[in-house]
């Protein structure tokens, strides 16, 4: 458990990072293009992990690093699925009918 002052600092920083992520999410989700919307996962992949680490360390949960590790590996997965799905819906549709 981190002591009082530092814990408060971490929580405050976490709140501000979350606020920034929320504002960013607002602009990203509005679009206008699909590529813009794909950034939503990316945005949370960095900002969300920072907020997670901050709140976890501040409340003394050591295993929060493991959660962050999982997120770091899998945040990319959702984004890749995003791009792949987009590519398939536009270019590779003929593959689908190949059967």
């Amino acid at each position, binding site marked *: 458990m981190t002591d009082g002052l530092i814990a408060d600092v971490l929580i405050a920083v976490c709140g501000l990072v*979350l606020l920034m992520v929320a504002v960013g999410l607002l602009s990203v989700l509005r679009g206008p293009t699909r590529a813009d919307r794909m950034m939503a996962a990316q945005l949370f992949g960095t900002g969300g992990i920072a907020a997670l680490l901050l*709140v976890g360390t501040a409340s003394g949960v050591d*295993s929060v690093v493991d959660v962050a590790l999982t997120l770091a590996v899998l*945040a990319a997965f*959702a984004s*890749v699925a995003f791009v792949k799905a987009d590519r398939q819906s536009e270019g590779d549709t003929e593959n689908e009918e*190949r*059967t």
Partner: protein
Amino acid sequence: MISAISVGIGILLLALALWTVVVRDTFAAVAGFIPYGLLLTLAWLVLRAVDVALTEAAIGAGLTGALLIRAASRLHPTEAAAQAETPGLGTRVVAGVAAAAVAVVIAVCLLRLPDPAPTLAPEVARHIEATGVGNPITAVLLSFRAIDTLLEAIVLLFGVVGVWSLAPDRCWGGRPGLAQAVGPNDILVYLARVLPPIGVVIGIYIFWAGADHPGGKFQGATVIAAMWLLVMMSGLRDAPPVNRRWLRVVLVLGPAVFIALGLLGAVMAGAFLAYPDGWAKLWIIVIEAALLPSLAVTLVLLMVGPPQRPEVSP
């Protein structure tokens, strides 16, 4: 201080949920669903459910998002027709009233939960010694409520059977998903070469840590499954044909070992899924180790869907 963060998380969670419900475009709704899953991970952490946070990080933020995005892209041609079916104002008002009524009833119930809260934590603390594991959640999952976990593994297997049963007859036994063609210089291929070795190590680490710290087979299996899917999406390796014997063996390995040890427990310790004295930890490790590959393969097969391409020649 922590409650200020909780308020922020709660508001953001509801805002994203509202977005996924009211936005017109399905693709945009799904795009909002991914950060929603990540935010839920934060909520579990604030509620001190670190094991649940890990599961949500793996499944909610990773796999579910990818599954829904693929579906949204595939179903995009139906979007215009579907939007024409949006119900009129009257239906929407009635739906809103019904939804509000449900929400209010649940809120009132949750705000008037009995005090002091009933809890099984002391019971778990009293008996955890006998299981030999340090993480109370692993103890619950694999010892005190092992039947739930067994049934869950079987439900997942039924899920795969359900997905496979959707295959057209001519494709049965073939490979699931679409053929992926990606150029060798694609950055995705690079990522699919570099990330999986690291990801598999992290998956196994999280599985192993589950004995004494937050973690376990579900979370580890999900990470490993995601790495395999990444390799498939990059086109480096194709999905396996569903009629392969090794695939079937791995699929049923976990539940089979679980049931076999459960029956052995009935003989040695007097009850189905009971562990004989002093052997609990070893049995738990054997069951978890058998479940890990089964769960990983099950999750991959659920993600890639039914076989869609008949096998040309083996």
